[in-house]
């Protein structure tokens, strides 16, 4: 547990020392989502309709921007070898890295979502649903993304390959996350969407850290 906290603390400290990399991903999210209302104009009915999809797609892409960093730096300077040789469980350490990635790349999206949603003329109820869906969905994005980041370690042109590997895996999260917001805006029941998002989250939480840890070990060999 100490090692888990230490690795989360370390990753957050490294982000604080080098803020630009993280801010890039967040600005990307804000800019992309702001371009749509500007480009489409003041057609509020249309904006409300496309809002869930646009915001979720932007969230997927900005998560992807931060993923490359998850293991690459530790791989390059030999830290990953040290983590594997730690007496603590490597899976727990990898989970710490995934958690730190979510704190830095996922949580801010949840907090920014209401501001972005206002640009799309979403009502208060939809904003709440959007935040809740992102809160449940973005950890899944970080978890699934870690598999891609681990599998493409040390591969030349890895970031493009990673996008191709990971984006298809994001489709269920996109469907149910955006679907929940849309359903809420037209007054349908949203519990189904949330149950499925929750199921995805639990499944990913149970298996992904282990899968990623083993993928990293293979890359190190």
């Amino acid at each position, binding site marked *: 547990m100490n090692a888990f906290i230490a690795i989360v603390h370390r990753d957050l400290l490294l982000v604080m020392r080098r803020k630009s990399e993280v801010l890039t991903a967040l600005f990307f999210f804000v800019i992309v989502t702001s371009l749509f209302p500007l480009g489409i104009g003041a057609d509020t009915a249309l904006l409300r309709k496309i809002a869930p999809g646009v915001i979720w797609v932007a969230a997927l892409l900005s998560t992807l921007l931060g993923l490359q960093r998850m293991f690459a730096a530790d791989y390059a300077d030999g*830290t990953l070898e040290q983590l594997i040789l730690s007496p603590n469980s490597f899976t727990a350490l990898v989970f710490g890295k995934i958690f730190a990635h979510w704190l830095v790349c996922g949580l801010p999206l949840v907090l920014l979502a209401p501001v972005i949603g206002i640009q799309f003329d979403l009502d208060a109820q939809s904003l709440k649903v959007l935040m809740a869906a992102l809160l449940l969905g973005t950890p899944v994005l970080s978890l699934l993304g870690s598999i891609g980041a681990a599998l493409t370690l040390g591969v030349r042109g890895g970031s493009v390959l990673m996008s191709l590997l990971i984006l298809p895996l994001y489709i269920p999260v996109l469907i149910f996350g955006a679907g929940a917001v849309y359903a809420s805006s037209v007054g349908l029941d949203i519990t189904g969407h949330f149950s499925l998002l929750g199921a995805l989250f639990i499944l990913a939480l149970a298996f992904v850290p282990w899968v990623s840890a083993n993928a990293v070990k293979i890359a190190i060999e």
Partner: protein
Amino acid sequence: MTAINSSFPASSASVLEARALTCIRGERELFSGLDLQVFAGQCLHIRGENGVGKTSLLRLLTGLTSPESGEVLWSGHSIKEEASEYHNKLLFLGHRDALKEDLSAIENLRLYAAIDGITLSEQDAFASLWRFGLKGREDLPVNCLSAGQKKRVLMARMLTRGAQVWILDEPFNALDTHAVQELQDLIAEHLRGNGLVVLTSHQPLAIPGLRVLDL
């Protein structure tokens, strides 16, 4: 100097052993049927030309890679089966320094103490850095240190880690003559405390209890 390095129990079981190791990189067989034994208090110096498989052998001994055939044993148990127990006793320093450039020397030490599951008091952490001439540089980001000074941070880590088995890949690179002597003293001290060391180096070493393996 503070005596952080505690002695390890002098049980006859503390032995690192390799049996019939075969290593293949790409298409080439680097070595096959390699046997070795290193007992507590001994230092094994692995020599050989570039590309002969020194680093590959060290990585096999740490368990980072698996041999094509053969096995590595710690105290008679396979390091694959009792990985956590072995890792508890192991310090491996590869040719990349594994220090975080944006963090200071002291932060790096604290981080590794947490990851290695050891308790490291502030006093010991500072004392270990001071011993290797890093007084006044504890809080500088590591990217402000020279290559030799980074190695000194690693020497502080060797001192504080409390591992019985040290596996060191080219530990003498980038060190000045004074630091080379300091590192040899540190290794000798570790051997006296019942530690064991496997290292690669291209320079002749003066360490008591040294054995040489030519690959």
